[in-house]
C-alpha cells in the first residue's frame, strides 16, 4: 500500500522505508527486555544444561529429590491461595472504588498505594509483629478470653502476609476494568425484573472477569517467585522454591542446579497458563458478547 492511494493519511507515517519508525520508539523497551530478561534467562538455561558438564544431570537431580517436588508443589499451592485471598479481598474494594465520589475514591486509592510504596521487607516485618505468638493478634485473642493461635511460621501466616503485599496488583487491574462497566446496565437488568443478586451474577460479574483474570495472573506469577515474605513469616513447612534456589546458588555454588530449578518453575508456570488460557479467552468473548 503506497501513500498515493491513501491521500487522507499523513504521508510520513506510511511511506515505505519509514515503517520502522514506530518500532524505533519501542527500541528502548526491547533493548532493556533483551538485556535484563532475555540474556540472563538464556544464561540460566544454558548453565542449567552445561554445569558441571553438558547434559541434563541437573534436571535428573531435581526430579530425583523428593524435597524439590514437595516444595515445587507447595509453591504453587501457596501462590494459588494467595491469589484466591487477593480476589476475595480486592473485588469488593475495587467495586467500592467505582461506586463512591471522587474524594472518597482518592482516599481508597491512597490506602492501596501507600503500603505499595513501603518496602516489602518493612511490611513483612510488621506482619511478624502482628502475627507472632506474643504479637498483637494473639494478645487480643487472649484478652478476649480465647486461646492464642499459631500464625507465624505457618502457611496461613505466609498467605496472609503475601496477600497483603500483592493486593495492589489485584485491586488496580480490577478497578480499571470495573470503572469501564456502565452501572446503568445493572439498573436495566433490575428494571426487567432481575433481583440485585441475579443482576450482579449475570451482568456485572461476567463484565468484570477480564479484570479478575488480569489481576489473578499478575498476583499468581509474582507470588511464585516470592522470597523474603515466606522466609520471614514461614517455617520449614512453608519454604518456597526460591529459598531452595538461593541455597543451591549462594551456599553451594551450584549454579546449574539453581538454574534448573528456575527453568522448571518457569516451564510449569507456562504450562499452567497455557491450560488456563482457553477458559479465559472464552470467558472474555462471552463477556464481550453480553
Amino acid at each position, binding site marked *: 500500500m503506497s501513500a498515493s492511494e491513501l491521500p487522507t493519511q499523513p504521508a510520513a507515517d506510511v511511506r515505505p522505508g519509514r515503517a520502522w519508525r514506530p518500532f524505533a520508539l519501542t527500541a528502548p523497551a526491547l533493548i532493556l527486555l533483551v538485556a535484563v530478561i532475555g540474556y540472563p534467562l538464556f544464561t540460566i538455561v544454558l548453565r542449567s544444561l552445561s554445569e558441571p558438564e553438558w547434559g541434563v544431570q541437573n534436571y535428573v537431580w531435581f526430579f530425583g*529429590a*523428593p*524435597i524439590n517436588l*514437595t*516444595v515445587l508443589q507447595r509453591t504453587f499451592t501457596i501462590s494459588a491461595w494467595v491469589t484466591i485471598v487477593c480476589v476475595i479481598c480486592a473485588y469488593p474494594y475495587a467495586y467500592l472504588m467505582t461506586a463512591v465520589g471522587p474524594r472518597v475514591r482518592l482516599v481508597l486509592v491512597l490506602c492501596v498505594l501507600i503500603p505499595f510504596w513501603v518496602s516489602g521487607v518493612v511490611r513483612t516485618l510488621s506482619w*511478624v509483629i502482628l502475627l*507472632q*505468638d*506474643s*504479637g498483637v493478634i494473639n494478645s487480643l485473642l487472649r484478652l478476649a478470653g480465647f486461646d492464642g493461635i499459631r500464625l507465624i*511460621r505457618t502457611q496461613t501466616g505466609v498467605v496472609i502476609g503475601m496477600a497483603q503485599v500483592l493486593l495492589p496488583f489485584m485491586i488496580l487491574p480490577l478497578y480499571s476494568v470495573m470503572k469501564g462497566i456502565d452501572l446503568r446496565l445493572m439498573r436495566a437488568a433490575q428494571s426487567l425484573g432481575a433481583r440485585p443478586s441475579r443482576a450482579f451474577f449475570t451482568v456485572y460479574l461476567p463484565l468484570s472477569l477480564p479484570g479478575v483474570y488480569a489481576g489473578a495472573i499478575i498476583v499468581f506469577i509474582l507470588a511464585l517467585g516470592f522470597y523474603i515474605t515466606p*522466609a*520471614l513469616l514461614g*517455617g*520449614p*513447612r*512453608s*519454604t518456597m522454591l526460591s*529459598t*531452595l534456589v538461593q*541455597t543451591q*546458588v*549462594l*551456599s*553451594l*555454588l551450584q*549454579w546449574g542446579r539453581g538454574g534448573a530449578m528456575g527453568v522448571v518453575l518457569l516451564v510449569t508456570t507456562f504450562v499452567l497458563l497455557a491450560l488456563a488460557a482457553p477458559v479465559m479467552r472464552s470467558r472474555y468473548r462471552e463477556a464481550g458478547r453480553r
Partner: protein
Amino acid sequence: MFKSRFAGLGAILALGVVAGAAFAQEKPVAGEVKEGSLKGKTLTFVSYGGIYQDGQAAALKEFVDKSGVKLLNDGPTEIAKLQAQVESGNVTWDVVDTDDLPPYVYCGKLFQKLDLTKLDVSKIPEGQVGECSVPAMNYGVVLMYNKEKYKDNPPKSWADFFDTAKFPGVRGIDGSGSPTGGLLEQAFKVAGGDPKAMTVADIDKAIDVVRKLGPDTIFWKTGAESQQLAESGEADMLMMWTGRAMTAVKNGAKYAPAWQDWLVVMDQMTIPVGVKDTDASYALLNAYLGKQSQEILAEKTSYTPINGDAQPKVDASVAAFLTNTPDRQKQGYKQNFKFWVPNFAVAQEKWSALMAGN
C-alpha cells in the same frame, strides 16, 4: 597450621641469611602501617554490613589515614558473587570477610593461599590461622535459656537442649542458611555417636536428632530474629550468636547462657584469587590484626578480638559475652573441621532438606 608456621619460619631463616639485619625491618608487625605507602591506591573491603562492618571500618581508620589508601566498603559477602568475579577475571573485592568454612572449602580456588611472611600472625589464638584465612573476630554459638521458664532446673548442655522430655519448651535454631557443624556434632553425641569419628552417614543421624525436636521448633533466619525471639520470650531455649545474645540480655530478655560446650565460631579474613594488588591487600590484613585495631573492633561490635594483646574497654554486659577469657576458652567446643570441609556440600544438602520441611 603447624606446617604453615614452619614454612614461615623456614622463609625467615633463609631470608635472614641473605638479607641479615635488613630483613628484620621488613618483617611485618601486626598493626604497623607505613606512612603514605598506598597513596593513590584503592582497596575494596567486603563484609556483612551493619554495626559489624562499621566497626571494622573504624578499626581500619588508622590504616587508611596513614597509608593514604582509599578504602571502599562493599557487601554483603556472597561467595557466589565472588565466584562470578574470579571466573570472569575481574576481581573487584580486595579483602573479603567470610563465614567459618568457605576459605577452607574454596582454598586456592577462590581464596589465595596466604604468604605468612607478609603477615604478623603471632598474636592470633592457637589453631585459628588457616591456609587461606586469618580470623576476623571470634564469637560463639551459645545455648540461651529462658530463666523464668526453667527457674531452679536450668538446662546445662546441648544434651539438655535436645531433651524435650526433661526440658519441655520451644527451641530456636539457626536456620539462616548453612548448618553449624558444632551443633550437628552435639546432636550426634546425643544419638550416641562419637563426633570425632563421624562419617557421612552419621550426618543423617545428627539431623534426625534435630528433627525430633518437633514441629514447634523455630528456625530463625537472621540474627535479629533470634534476638527478637528472646526479647519476646517466644522460644524457651535458643541457639544464639553471642553478639545477639548479649544485645538481647541488654534489652531486657530474661535469658541466661549455658556456656558448657559453647560452639567456637569465627569470621575469616581472606584475599580472593586474582586481586589486582596483592600486597595492598596484605597491608590491610596486617593492619587489621593489630592490637589497637582489634580493641576498636571489640569496643564497637562487642565481638571478641583476635589479637591476644588487645584489651578493649567494654562494659560488664559486653564483657560477660566475650569468649576469650580462660574460663570460656576451657568450655568452648571446636567443630571437627577436617570432617566438615570435605563434606560441606552433603551436609548443606541434608540441612536444606530439613529446613524445607522434609
